[in-house]
């Protein structure tokens, strides 16, 4: 749509609300995805959708409703439904009311690229063909996706919030497989011109070739070098388990009661910054509140967690601008996690390992003990044995069961290069380096 059209429709609906306070959040998305496998394109899809979420407040009662119908009639109906839902609720004494508007740094955050929004399916197909042809040259099989997305996020409320942001995402991913090995490559950016299919394909092909004929390694504690893709899976789990005010409420947050204490290695800094242009910025959250940087770990010392307006009021803090669409069962959530860069390189890290494991990716992480952020999962798409400072063999995938805070405490080296990894939520991205960590626990091996 456009800012004027969308805000106009939303404000009209707002005026018709009979609730004490009303908030409307609209997310429109034009997205297209080319999905390939076994060296052919097997799905090529587009979707044009809108999602409207309304919160209506009557006294301390909160009701919600949603629709995909962005017409004036559709918006009027969903506002009425939210108001009716509110009247069914009992008072929520912790509900502080909808937040008042705060200045948003939208002008300084540029995440929308016209060329991405205008890209055509034929362009995606030609890019994918480059990956496929590189894989075929080595008699390997390529699979992956090339997605482009152009989205609008708009928030208005009867408190005067009127926020709008338009952004684009382009992402190419490749898994290249041989008979007994596979490799992975991925690149994401707001600008489709940044996507380099040759580089993505080359990385995946090289890994698949190097890890052919994997050997089996007995599980146990190993020194590891983790690529940014592997770190992403683990930081995603940490975000879910332990970096929000809700995790404090549920006692699964390792930071709870340990602010300022040395919890991780002094070389580890972990934070969320929705305004840093190195990532994929979002200037405000789903309540229209401006994003503020939150430092979880600063040189290994315990810091803060992210808040939305509800948890901020309940726990005596200011919102940090990390609300997801309300209501939700996740609570506030960091969508722009960064790990501070180090001064090393992946090659340096590998050279410093006498005997260890290099992990390209982890897969299917799930909590085992949330309180200590212990998670399990497996390696995939390129796991190497490191011997005497060199990657010497591919190894069969391993299962890990590891405390994430323990891993950050045993981190001894971090790369200066960081990868931008767009979120699977369709908004935000992590910016992560490679890391070297000691005493990483592998607890099983796959067949």
């Amino acid at each position, binding site marked *: 749509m456009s800012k004027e059209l969308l805000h106009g429709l939303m404000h009209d609906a707002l005026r018709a609300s009979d609730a004490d306070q009303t908030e409307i959040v609209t997310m429109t998305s034009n997205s297209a995805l080319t999905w390939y496998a076994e060296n052919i394109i097997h799905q*090529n899809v587009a979707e044009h959708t*809108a999602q409207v979420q309304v919160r209506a407040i009557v006294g301390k009662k909160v009701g919600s409703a949603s629709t995909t*119908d962005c017409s004036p009639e559709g918006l009027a109906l969903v506002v009425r439904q939210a108001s009716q839902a509110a009247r069914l609720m009992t008072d929520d004494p912790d509900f502080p009311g909808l937040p008042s508007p705060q200045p948003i740094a939208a002008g300084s955050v540029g995440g929308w690229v016209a060329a991405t929004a205008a890209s055509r399916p034929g362009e995606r*197909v030609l890019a994918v063909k480059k990956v496929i042809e590189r894989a075929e040259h080595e008699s390997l*099989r390529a699979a992956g996706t090339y997605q482009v997305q152009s989205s609008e996020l708009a928030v208005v409320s009867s408190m005067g919030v009127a926020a709008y942001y338009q952004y684009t995402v382009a992402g190419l991913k490749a898994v290249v497989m041989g008979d007994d090995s596979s490799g992975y490559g991925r690149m994401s950016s707001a600008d489709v011109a940044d996507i380099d299919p040759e580089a993505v394909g080359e990385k995946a092909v090289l890994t698949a070739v190097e890890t052919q004929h994997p050997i089996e390694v007995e599980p146990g504690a190993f020194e590891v070098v983790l690529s940014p893709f592997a770190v992403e899976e683990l930081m995603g789990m940490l975000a879910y388990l332990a970096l929000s005010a809700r995790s404090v409420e549920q006692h699964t947050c390792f930071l709870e009661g340990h602010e300022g204490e040395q919890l991780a290695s002094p070389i580890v800094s972990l934070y969320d910054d929705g305004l840093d242009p190195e990532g994929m910025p979002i200037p405000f959250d789903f309540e229209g509140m401006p994003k503020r940087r939150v430092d979880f770990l600063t040189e290994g010392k315990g810091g803060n967690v992210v808040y939305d307006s509800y948890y901020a009021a309940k726990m005596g803090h200011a919102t940090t601008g990390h609300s997801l669409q309300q209501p939700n069962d996740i609570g506030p959530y960091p969508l722009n996690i960064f790990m501070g860069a180090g001064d090393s390189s992946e090659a340096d890290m590998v050279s410093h390992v006498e005997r260890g494991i290099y992990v390209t990716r982890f897969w299917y992480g799930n909590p085992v003990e949330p309180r200590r952020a212990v998670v399990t999962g497996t390696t995939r798409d390129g796991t190497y044995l490191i011997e005497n400072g060199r990657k010497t063999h591919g190894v069969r995938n391993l299962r890990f069961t590891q405390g994430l805070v323990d891993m950050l405490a045993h981190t001894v080296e971090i790369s200066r290069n960081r990868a931008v990894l767009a979120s699977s939520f369709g908004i935000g991205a992590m910016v992560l380096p490679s890391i070297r960590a000691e005493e990483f626990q592998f*607890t099983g091996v796959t067949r």
Partner: protein
Amino acid sequence: MDKFTERVIAGAKRLGASYCDCRLIEMEREDVSVVGGAPRAVVHAHQRGFGVRVIANGAWGFSSSSIVTDAEADHIAEEAVGIAHASALAKKKDVVLAPVSSGEDMIPHQADVDPFTIPDSDKIGLLAEATRAMMLPGVVLARGQMQFLKERKIFASSEGSYIVQDRVESGAGISAMAASEKGGVQIRSYPMSFSGDNAQSGWEFVDAMKLLEYAEPTAREALALLSAKPCPSGFKDLVVGGQQLALQVHESCGHPSELDRVMGMEASFAGTSFLTTDKKGSFRYGSDIVNLTADATIPHALGGLAYDDEGVRGRKVYLVRGGIFEHYLNSRASAPVVGEEPMGAMRADGFARSPIVRMVSINLEPGDLTFEQLIGGVEDGLYVDGIKSWSIDDRRLNFQFGSEIAWEIRGGKLQDMVKNPTYTGVTYEFWRSCDGIGGLELYHVWGVDNCGKGEPMQVAHVSHGTSPARFRHVQVGVLHE
């Protein structure tokens, strides 16, 4: 055929599509959640839109929109055909669909009492009472939730199918989280963890759960777990409860049987499958007593359907019979590749997404043992149940699952409660070790509404019929320190 879908299909054919189907879907959903006796949220959601799938120049194209107008019908049909032509730039061979019968049909929903006719205040009231009953000293969080869905889906195709299917789903569940002063946290759920149990039924399904009756015992188990024994480490015989076994069936049989995954189509996301096509008809997946079915015809099962999103009639097939892997979950395009007939497993998440191969109801056929006989056959082991944590590798072989609760088994009797139980293994070794399955009286079809697959991510509603079953020499209590 209605004028809208007729317009879409005519438009796509005019632009050169050799095949077109259109799904026009209107869906209402209601989610109710209550925490500690107070309503947390009542959310009504409405979705309406259409998805258009075409074959043009021998390749697939798909587009969808939430705007249902004639002008948008023309635009989306044109875009879908344009995308198909772009896909054809990289095709190796033309898409070929297995022939299926076409025709018109109207499928009613299976609910007795439309849950949308029950006042929200009644739903909140029931959950409030149940969660209050769970708030015993030491319980820090008592949650309850219900979810209801009502959908009308019209499937029309250029082959002459016009199928209208109505669907009503209901589900509910409660959970208690207990915390100790030492920092221990334990959760117990009823009747199932996460969103509870779900079915293609009406309010009568929630009513029959007897949430109030089970609320306090559920909370007491959560409290008891705080001081329970830790899970032992080593190899033990394992009796897996029906709920936990539903997860086992889902992850280690349902997903690896998806033919698109086997053919590499999911390789870049969820991975591939160890059930490669050379194993069809000969691979020993489990012991002789293991029979696993894909059955879309079970009344009220959440994964049941009359027709899938390709217009294929749902039916029952044996994925594993007598322990031997026999059949895949398939689609019209993939079934002929392995010599199968389409069996009705192509499903899409709403109107916006293109259908992919999904589970329907995947079930472990019941055996003939009582619960006492299952336990009685174990000298030294564990009985585990209650889904808590799951992880499986990208070929669906190496798994590690955690359960909410366990009990030691010694000398054929249940003994002390055990907390944080975990077990791990390799799929076919685990199923080959199965030597006892509970009978029909222990059988239940569990409705699971959170099965994720595909890119962009699609969530499917599936189900799993299981009885408790016994497995020998399984690694339990996975160490991580």
